[in-house]
């Protein structure tokens, strides 16, 4: 036994000594394989691979990027390029996120980054990406991303701008609603979203009776539901909720507490997940956003993405498109600027704006004068909405890009175009 143990000692020591090989560029994590006559453009990405949405976004990118490379569509100044997407795990934390960003910027020497999700990793890596002039198209929800001080970072998910069009739709679907109660997680996103939605709801003439916060990991919503029901509002809204079974549990609890009014949500619920925990009656009537792939006549891009994804992975139900707009924005920005210098590209789109297409429809960069940022820094897109009827999400209507931007301008003020 002693000999065996000593062999294992040496084995462990040897393993530890071999590990620094991980620093070698050879072992960096690329997806696409370059071929002749084509240069490679390295693009970095950090994702919370300890969460479902991180893993799903990675899976989606692993479908979209190779297909894009095969199509050979990226030509800058006459030279064809392939994208080498390097994805690291940021574990949704500031420490890992910062280390991942530092590695991408200094070791892999990327000049562009896309699709970061969590506010903590994004903010932690911000000082590095800004000082090294790395153009960063992020997905995160924090308003700090669109602070006027930043020059190279652009928020490409519609989280911050999806509320005004949502409430436009609410007025159409629930015309008689006068009061609403918010139920929101007690974290940065939840609090920021609740504040924002309060402003929007009141701008649309619906009074917010109460904002209830729950600790992030809550699974038992019976007490909160009882409290929310006691206000007897016409609507319940769920700012900052995470799409998943937790959301379904909230709906179930509200139904159990006796609430029979309308439900509103800015996120698209994962139908498989919420029907697994809540009955059809509990879910009935929920008004929420709808993915561009599920509407009655999806765009060619939406159809293509869904097809490619299903070819590789089989089923579509787990897929998440929420954070993908960053990729499309990035490609469009490069094409528009016809340059691979991040300073040039960032400057161009910050001053002139950008329009591009995502599976949900058209998207464009907007200014945020209400946050004192007069550069193009945030994103609005077309929105589609659905209501749950008998356990299925049925299409209800669409708000065009123009209407979305106008609604945002009306609520938050200033000129966004």
């Amino acid at each position, binding site marked *: 036994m002693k000999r065996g143990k000593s062999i294992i000692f040496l084995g*462990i020591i040897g393993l*530890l000594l071999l590990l620094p090989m*991980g620093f070698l560029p050879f072992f960096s994590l690329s997806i696409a394989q370059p071929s002749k006559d084509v240069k490679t453009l390295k693009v970095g990405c950090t994702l919370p691979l*300890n969460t479902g949405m991180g893993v799903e976004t990675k899976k989606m990118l692993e479908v979209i990027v190779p297909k894009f490379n095969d199509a050979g569509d990226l030509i800058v100044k006459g030279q064809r390029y392939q994208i080498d997407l390097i994805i690291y795990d940021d574990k949704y934390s500031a420490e890992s996120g*910062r280390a991942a960003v530092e*590695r991408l910027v*200094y*070791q892999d020497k990327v000049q562009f980054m896309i699709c970061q999700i969590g506010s903590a990793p994004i903010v*932690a890596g911000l000082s590095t990406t800004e000082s090294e002039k790395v153009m960063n198209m992020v997905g995160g929800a924090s308003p700090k991303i669109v602070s006027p001080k930043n020059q190279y970072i652009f928020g490409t998910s519609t989280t911050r701008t999806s509320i005004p069009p949502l409430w436009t739709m609410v007025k159409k679907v629930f015309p008689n609603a006068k009061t609403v109660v918010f139920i929101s997680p007690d974290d940065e996103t939840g609090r920021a979203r609740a504040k924002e939605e309060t402003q929007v709801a009141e701008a649309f003439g619906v009074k917010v009776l109460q904002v209830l916060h729950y600790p992030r990991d809550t699974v038992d919503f019976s007490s909160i539901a009882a409290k929310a029901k006691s206000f007897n509002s016409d609507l319940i809204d769920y700012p900052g909720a995470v799409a998943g079974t937790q959301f379904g549990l909230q709906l179930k609890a509200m139904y159990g507490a006796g609430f029979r009014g309308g439900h509103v949500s800015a996120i698209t619920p994962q139908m498989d997940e919420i029907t697994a925990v809540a009955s059809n009656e509990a879910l009935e009537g929920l008004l929420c956003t709808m993915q561009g792939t599920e509407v009655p006549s999806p765009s060619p891009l939406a159809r293509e993405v869904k097809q490619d994804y299903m070819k590789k992975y089989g089923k579509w139900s787990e897929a998440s498109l929420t954070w993908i707009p960053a990729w499309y924005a990035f490609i469009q920005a490069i094409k528009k600027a016809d340059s691979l210098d991040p300073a040039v590209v960032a400057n161009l789109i910050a001053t002139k704006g950008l329009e591009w297409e995502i599976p949900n429809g058209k998207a464009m960069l907007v200014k945020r004068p209400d946050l004192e940022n007069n550069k193009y820094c945030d994103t609005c897109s077309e929105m589609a909405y659905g209501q749950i009827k008998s356990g299925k999400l049925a299409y209800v209507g669409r708000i065009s890009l123009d209407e979305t931007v106008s609604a945002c301008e009306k609520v938050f003020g200033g000129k966004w175009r």
Partner: protein
Amino acid sequence: MEKWLRIYSMKLCTKEVTLFIVLGIIILLLPLLMKSPYQMHLIIMLCINIVLAMSFAMLFSTGLITIGAAAFWAIGAYASALLVMNLNLSFWLALPLASIITGVIAFMLGSIIVRAPGVAFVVQTMVINMIIVQALGQMEFLGGWGGILDIPRPNPIGSIKFVSKTNYYYLILFLLLLTVVVFYALYSSRIGRAWRSIRLNPRLAQTLGINLFRYRLLAFIVASMSAGLVGSFYAHYFGTIEPNTFSVFKSIYIQIYGILGGLNFYLMGPTIGALIMTLVPEFLRIGKEIEPILTGGILILLVIFLPGGILSLPERMGSLAAAFLSRIKKKVSLH
């Protein structure tokens, strides 16, 4: 411990001196050898983790196990950020002040909890950590869950500006060495001897007239002050701080840094442990999603096969070598 004492007493042998000089040169010239700022970032984080691990080890040297080290790290970080941003103090003033504030808070909390023996103490440090994280997250004027952003860099001294990682590295190296020197002085003094006797046998120590409470409280305060010190550095290096960085899980990781290196080595042990746990996950980025599985696996293997920590290796190698040699002798003698 004995090894350190041997080295620092006047009976130095030339081989060991050369080793230390070479190591010292490498450490001082590290920025020149490490081309990539990413690697420098890792080294800087490593130094921070080493100090945190040493603070855990100091408490362990008195027989107390803490799962709350990250809480004091947080206090130092937030105190320093607030002092500089709201009171417009210079970083160089905020650094020691943050450490002192942490010490004061440690004194207040310690007076209550150090009395509780063993298990209760562990539990109370955990509770303190959880309360502090929750409080920092709830207080909006401290930034809430989003934390404090745009913490300014340390003020330049003369022409030394803190823009590149190099200057940060020398600063943290200085803080690390300062901590090592202070800790070493304490360990080799009467106080250190008292701590070790408390750890070995508290009742016996009491009969020798050692006031358990006072010595343990001292260890608690000094350990927390060192955590507060690097907390201040961390805030101004990282630029942003948020409550979840300082959670109980970080404290547990700090404990693991101590365990991996060897719990009987209060200075080298934490260094090695922090080295492994900081660098291995980074090396294993190759593994993408499965990295925590690999890190967890390595952790388990190390704990099982090296229960005394990495630094017990020389002794075990020694005894293994002796066993091996004796087996060979037996075989030879039979012929």
